């Protein structure tokens, strides 16, 4: 009888241990107390970030979380996964001398971008293709779009004039102590954003996380940052790439449609007009043919299809500037008019329509 009780107790303890283990695994490690770091003024912090010339040797995982509030659109493929709410992960490596490697795992396939100092190799496993660029062109822009360091630096530069910049204590990102740099729009700015928060590594002064929060929301609408980071020398073989046997290699092509849509840059043949400055900047561009032709990476879709897509995404609006569809997210608005113009910015709809009227 006693033995039976002992074995039951052992079994109960085992079950409890298993359940506790699961809970520990499932719940992410708590942030813990904020690390004590020497105090620093916002100006000094921004300057030290800008002074970082190159990313130190490191490896890490960058996770981007998107809470824009756009619905997921079937049939858009990869672009949809990036636009709709959800998160995207990339693994990055840097050797400290400007060479880098980026890999974007996607289910059962992977895209790997390697910059070996002279050449950028872009490997796509699902199509078995390698795109080769000579140094300093599309590939670098591409890495900038994903690397939080460059993204944050650009933002700080751009927003300094119209924002209140302050240091909001310290924190921990990817296990490293960071300073929290917070940018808030000045009251005169007509923007939908409440704050942009940049976590700056206290040691290397590399921005480790960027979060953008819209008005009236506690959760960041956009967040890109390291979920995992190790600073230290990397295996040099990581920064070499030899196209595997049987892969199709294309050379010299600097712009690939799919990259454009992902990097959210306007295609080269459209020069956007910039209206306003600071947080309420509005970009106005003219689409080459009809509405939404460039926003759709799947070539060969008919115009009717993209109209249907617009109806699904946006709501019809009209005014002195014409008619169109407004697509609103929690941090910004885009307006696509029936005469093929696109206006977008981190602003409410009224600012967009005002900008459209003025730019006529």
């Amino acid at each position, binding site marked *: 009888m006693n033995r*039976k009780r002992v*074995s*039951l107790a*052992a*079994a*109960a*303890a*085992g*079950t409890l*241990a*298993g*359940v506790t*283990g*699961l*809970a520990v*695994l*499932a*719940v992410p490690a708590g942030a813990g107390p904020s690390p004590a770091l020497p105090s620093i003024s916002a100006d000094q912090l921004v300057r030290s970030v800008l002074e970082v010339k190159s990313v130190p040797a490191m490896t890490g*995982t960058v996770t981007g979380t998107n809470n824009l509030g756009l619905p997921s659109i079937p049939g858009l493929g990869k672009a949809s996964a990036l636009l709709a709410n959800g998160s995207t992960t990339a*693994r990055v490596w840097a050797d400290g001398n400007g060479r880098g490697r980026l*890999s974007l*795992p996607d*289910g*059962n*396939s*992977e895209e*790997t971008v390697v910059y070996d100092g002279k050449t950028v*190799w872009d*490997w796509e*496993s*699902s*199509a*078995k293709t*390698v795109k080769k660029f000579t140094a300093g062109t599309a590939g670098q822009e591409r890495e900038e779009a994903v690397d939080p360091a460059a993204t944050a630096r650009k933002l700080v530069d751009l927003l300094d004039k119209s924002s209140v910049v302050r240091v909001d204590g310290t924190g921990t990102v990817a296990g490293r102590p960071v300073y929290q740099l917070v940018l808030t729009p000045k009251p005169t700015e007509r923007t939908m954003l409440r704050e942009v928060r940049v976590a700056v590594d206290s040691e290397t002064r590399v921005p480790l996380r960027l979060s953008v929060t819209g008005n009236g929301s506690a959760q960041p609408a956009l967040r890109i940052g390291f979920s*995992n980071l190790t600073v230290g020398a990397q*295996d040099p073989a*990581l920064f070499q*790439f*030899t*196209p*595997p*046997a*049987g*892969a199709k290699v294309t050379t010299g092509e600097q712009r690939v449609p799919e990259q454009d849509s992902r990097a959210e840059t306007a295609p080269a043949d459209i020069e956007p007009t910039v209206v306003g400055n600071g947080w309420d900047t509005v970009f106005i561009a003219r689409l080459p043919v009809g509405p939404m032709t460039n926003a759709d990476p799947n070539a060969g879709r008919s115009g009717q299809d993209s109209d249907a897509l617009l109806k699904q995404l946006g709501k019809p609006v009209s005014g002195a500037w014409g008619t169109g569809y407004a697509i609103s997210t929690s941090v910004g608005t885009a307006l696509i008019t029936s005469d093929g113009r696109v206006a977008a910015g981190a602003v409410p709809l009224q600012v967009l329509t005002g900008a459209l009227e003025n730019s006529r």
Partner: protein
Amino acid sequence: MTLVAENSPPTRAVRAPLGRLLAAEMRWALRRPRTLIAIALLALVPVLIGVGALVAGNSERGGPDGLFAALAGNGFLLPVLALTLLLTMLLPLLGAMSAADALAGESAHGTLRGLLIAPVGRGRLLAVKAFGVATVVLTGVVAVAVVGLVTGLFIGGTDGLVTLSGSTVSVGSALARVGLAVSWVAFQVFAVAAVALAVSACTDHPLVVMAATLAGALVFGILTVIPQLDWLQPYLLTTGWTSITDVVRDPIPLDGLVNSTLKATCYLVIGLSLAYARLSTKDG
């Protein structure tokens, strides 16, 4: 002579050597025709995939679909792809089948009673049974991997072992990656089988074990796709199963594989504990 034996103090019961017990259980588990047939059928899957990819690869219309597309001319991806596909349903089914036979099956035949009244610790009985289940699971996984490897190398040849990251790896490294996949998959399936073993200890009907495991796998699958239950996902064993693809990336991202292995360990501990609890309270 008989006098001596009668007069000597009662000796401790002679324990059967553990090695012999384990060997007997292994033989018992592996010589069941249904186990052998199941493993043979599972091993046919990589052959089917390989032939299918060979036929489909010649026509261009099969659009790019991850591992399938990468398979053409890439031998060592085949075992990994086969394991990925089988892990979702059929390998857990194999584990459940052997777990069902281990306790519920014996119970149904009335042979478990013999084991329970024998002077054998219940923990020891469970350990031997769990070992038998593990043997079947490992044999199944190894069979799939070996047949897949042979088929893949036969179709794709030994040169051009390309990872998903686009690097070419040596045969040794490729074999090590397949080995990693095999041990990882076998452990995950064994975790499922441990939970099945707990069900198996509670019932006299092997069919109940199979049904429960199958239903569990389906429910986990359904829970994964409900967005409102996102918070539940880190607790589910099946959500970690996508990380098997990581073994064919370069360098291998270990965090997903390690995390899912730890998760499987938790399920394993829970399953075996519950099975032990039921077994130790069972009357002969």
